[in-house]
């Protein structure tokens, strides 16, 4: 491994970390503004022009708040749990190509930290490990509501991992590779080559499962809304709670990158327009996360399980079988 590669990788890691930490903060601003507009409110308006500096104010508050470790909690696990959420969210980003490769001062930059040949499997696996953040945080909190929320979110995450994995299997069979770069090359021919046209069912299933994987509103069962308690993060304060938040929003951004890369042609032929297209698609999927939060109610936990095991999983399996038959003959 030569030094230039090492330096390049470190720079890319730092850039991704910085950009997406900042985006997670700005994501909260977008969420509050868009939710407000959809409910005929104004949202944050007082800090800075149109409330733009609200993110900075929240950041200062989170950083300077007292870090409370309550009595009876399992100290070490309680402290490490938010780090797991945030860290796994960012680790998953390692195999995502955010932009097509481009020339910078005569040097070819690949905006992917590591093009591992098991790309999508790695991303899903690391996002699966992210489950341990809520689970351990809730179990270590010495709070029954945190525990309830942790158990429920664990059930949701594990169940929907099945749907995610099975739904993505059919496109993987078509492409014949797990690397997101290869997925992109497969669809590089243009609009007609997008996998969504040949695998619409897998697209819908993956999209639905993405809501469960990120714990967003139709499946926002990580919070105990019916008990008016915030769920596994109840006992957390300050920056530890902030890490949970950053992890959640970073996950939303990364999933919003993965869906277009898998199904909607990614960055296409790698031109500037293609790169803009990927960012546009990412923005739409991120917006959709906020949109559904304003429009739809949460489902009950048993309905969620019913949807997963009795509806989505059978459809995913049937989809795989049909895809296999079509590919065979």
């Amino acid at each position, binding site marked *: 491994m030569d030094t230039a590669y090492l330096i390049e990788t470190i720079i890319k890691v730092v850039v991704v970390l910085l950009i997406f930490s900042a985006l997670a903060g700005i994501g909260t601003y977008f969420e509050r503004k868009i939710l407000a507009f959809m*409910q005929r409110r*104004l949202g944050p308006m007082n800090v800075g022009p149109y409330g733009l500096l609200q993110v900075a104010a929240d950041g200062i508050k989170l950083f300077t708040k007292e870090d409370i470790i309550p009595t009876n909690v399992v100290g070490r696990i309680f402290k490490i749990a938010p780090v797991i959420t945030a860290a796994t969210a960012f680790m998953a980003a390692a195999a995502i190509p955010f932009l097509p490769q481009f020339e910078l001062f005569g040097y070819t930059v690949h905006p992917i930290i590591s093009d591992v040949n098991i790309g999508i499997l790695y991303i899903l696996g690391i996002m699966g490990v992210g489950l341990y953040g809520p689970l351990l945080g809730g179990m270590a909190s010495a709070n029954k509501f945190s525990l309830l929320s942790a158990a429920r979110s664990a059930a949701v995450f594990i169940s929907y991992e099945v749907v995610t994995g099975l739904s993505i299997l059919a496109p993987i069979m078509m492409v014949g590779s797990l690397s997101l770069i290869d997925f992109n090359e497969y669809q590089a021919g243009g609009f007609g080559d997008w996998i969504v046209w040949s695998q619409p069912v897998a697209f819908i299933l993956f999209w639905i499962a993405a809501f469960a994987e990120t714990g967003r509103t139709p499946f926002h069962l990580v919070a105990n809304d019916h008990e008016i308690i915030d769920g596994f993060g109840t006992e957390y304060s300050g920056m530890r709670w902030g890490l949970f938040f950053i992890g959640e929003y970073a996950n939303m951004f990364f999933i919003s990158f993965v869906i277009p890369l898998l199904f909607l042609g990614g960055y296409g032929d790698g031109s500037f327009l293609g790169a803009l297209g990927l960012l546009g698609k990412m923005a739409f999927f991120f917006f959709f996360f906020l949109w559904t939060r304003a429009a739809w109610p949460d489902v009950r936990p048993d309905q969620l399980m019913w949807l997963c095991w009795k509806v989505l999983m059978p459809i995913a399996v049937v989809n795989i079988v049909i895809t296999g038959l079509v590919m065979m003959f």
Partner: protein
Amino acid sequence: MKNTQEFNNRNVSENGYYLVDIADYPTDGWGKFKRVVQRTFRGELFVGLWVVLREMIKFDIHTIQYPQEKMPIGPRYRAVHEMKRLWESDAERCIGCGLCEKICISNCIKMDTRIDEHSRKEVSEYTINLGRCIFCGYCAEVCPELAITHGGEYEQASEQREHFVDYSYMLTPLDKMKAGTQVEFEGFGAITPHEDERVKKTPLAY
């Protein structure tokens, strides 16, 4: 009489009442399956999405940015008291009769009077404890001179429960009087419109 008959007839079936037509819940598996498929493809989720998106596009924001913008409040609103002056002479209307102190049910008005150099009764001390005041409006109603009234100033945060306003605070300032901008209170104790036409004059014959 038709109306009372309608009300007295408690026989529900004759009054045009009807049961809402709700289909029975499916009991067997096939019925449940059909219901799920129907609900899935009816597109109800997209109705919800469209409603919120429409509101966002219309951008009909109903927020009032409170410290900068305020809702108009009604002229009868009973907030912190005001002491009015006479329009003709700019003199204080209060004659120191003490009725407001007497009627106040929360005992928040305290006043003291003395005889001034023109041998007229004059208010020397007058305070209202807003911490005790329940803003019932009795003082404004009982005042024979329309002197003490309620005003529209509702922003009265204070550092302690005992929050006093005194006579000079409530009295209409003289410059406001000169500008003719004193506003009469329309609420409790105020003269009703067209009072002159409706009032019965006291017969002076006896």
